[in-house]
């Protein structure tokens, strides 16, 4: 870090004293950043320590306790693993389906000047912005009628409402970044449009595809509202199961904390891989790339 600062200050013609101030400032900013981050993450760390606290001492505020896995064991023994599995299936299923349907559409929009391209873009943006309650009312009625209530398939379908729009929007910008000349070369060699897409464009966009898939997975995994309304017991997802721990008279704080940690862990791991794409994904539809 100091190595990059030195040439910069030399280029600006700064005196050595100025350079020293510069370096000191950097250290100060780094220290400030680290402490502010610690402060911002303190609530999360508190949840983590609580999950390792023995139940007898769960309400204590001090940090003097022997860590235990009893909360996690209690979690594994109950119905929570099943809910975790439902979350996993619904998120993975919806991610797969949105990529399967959305990726070709994104490529088509990136490469062909459809006359209604602008309207489609606006449609996607409104889908991203629409309040979930607006979707739940019709879906609740339709699912009851179709027998999709309280099923993982039902969740897969409703997660398409946000995932599909996200896939089309983000993949479109990834495809637009691949030079057309590569495809044109493949076309001259006799490849069809979708052949050249599969052999040339898609492999070149693999990192973008992975990032988009992970974003879809995280968004579905994080859903609480849809699962709360559209599932009961057979397809209950992990976030809804956590809330159910809160319904009992004696709040099982240890179990709640442990379940929270289990649910947030996959998200943290995935986020690390897509950190540079994350903001772009969340902005899907709002900014023209």
């Amino acid at each position, binding site marked *: 870090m100091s190595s*990059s600062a030195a040439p910069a200050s030399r280029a600006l013609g700064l005196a050595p004293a100025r350079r020293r101030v510069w370096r000191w400032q950097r250290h100060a900013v780094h220290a400030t950043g680290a402490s502010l981050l610690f402060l*911002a993450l303190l609530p999360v760390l508190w949840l983590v320590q609580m999950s390792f606290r023995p139940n007898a001492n769960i309400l204590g505020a001090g940090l003097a306790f022997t860590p235990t896995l009893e909360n996690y064991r209690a979690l594994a023994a109950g119905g929570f693993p099943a809910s975790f599995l439902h979350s996993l299936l619904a998120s993975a299923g919806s991610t797969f389906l949105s990529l399967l349907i959305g990726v070709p559409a994104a490529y088509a929009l990136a490469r062909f000047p459809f006359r209604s391209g602008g309207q489609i873009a606006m449609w996607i943006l409104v889908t991203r912005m629409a309040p979930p309650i607006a979707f739940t009312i019709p879906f609740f009625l339709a699912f009851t009628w179709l027998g999709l209530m309280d099923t993982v398939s039902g969740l897969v379908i409703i997660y398409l*409402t946000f995932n599909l*729009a996200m896939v089309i929007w983000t993949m479109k910008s990834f495809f637009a970044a691949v030079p057309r000349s590569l495809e044109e070369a493949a076309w001259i060699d006799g490849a069809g449009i979708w052949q050249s897409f599969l052999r040339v464009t898609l492999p070149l966009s693999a990192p973008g595809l992975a990032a988009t898939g992970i974003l879809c997975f995280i968004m579905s995994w994080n859903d609480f509202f849809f699962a709360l309304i559209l599932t009961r017991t057979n397809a209950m997802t992990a976030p809804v199961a956590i809330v159910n721990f809160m319904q009992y008279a004696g709040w099982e704080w240890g179990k709640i904390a442990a379940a929270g940690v289990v649910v947030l862990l996959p*998200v943290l791991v995935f986020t690390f891989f897509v950190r540079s794409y994350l*903001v772009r994904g969340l902005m899907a539809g709002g900014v023209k790339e």
Partner: protein
Amino acid sequence: MTAAAWSIEQRRAFTLGLAPALVVLAAVTLGPAIYLLVTSLTPLTPVTPGSGLDFSTPLANYTQALFESSFLHSVGLQLELSAITVGLQTLVGLGLALLLNIESRFMEAIRTGFLVPMVLPPIVVAIIWKILYTPGISPLYATLNFFGIPVGSLITDPATALPAIAVADSWEWFPFTLLMVLAALQMMPKEPLEAARIDGAGPFQMFWYVKLPFIRPALTIAVLFRLIDSIKAFPLIYVLTNGGPGLATEVTNYYAFIQTFNFAYWGYGSAIATLMIAGVFLLSLLVARLGGTSAADE
């Protein structure tokens, strides 16, 4: 193959690629939207058979909403919540971005760390703040007590419940503004900054006249996104206050949820949801205009 034939082939192939997505998107978004609009014109409730086909007073739900004090109250609360939370997270995000705007490996790691609150499952955020706001278990209350500042339970007091939710929501989302502004600041050319420094501009002048004009587009988009999303805040309210105490945190989204799923007023709930979509649509038009996505320039 001739050029004309190739062009027809291209159109055919691309249309084929786009069609399935449009069909599915229409089925899961446009269809439900139309259905919502239709049910909003009926007094639909599962209690009364046939109520879903009763179009005798199509606008009854909308006129009821306009004169229903609890609905108007919820809109007021919504405005209050949005104003506090968007204001707070914009200030915090912008301030931190200005403070942490240094390009180095170390700062990149820090930035990744700041992603955590906004990617956490919202239900986990809700649990975390439930713990922080529950006296007897909260380290926050323990610390305040230790320093001799006893505070009552914030989420059971009607006067503080909504601001308490706004604080939790701001914690979850300030990283969004932070990252947006940081990204904009780092794309800023160095010359104007150097020029202003040489001209003797102070830190405030530097911000107001040089940096702010440059980051304004990114900041505006971030604010609009957060504004729209603040209308949808749900898990925090569900877990922390359940709309209470009394009606103190029953914002419009929550009001629609309760009317629909607790009282089974499907038609009325649909009308409220339709009004919400209309509001969101208007805000989205603004985003599209400012962000460059519009029907005109495609």
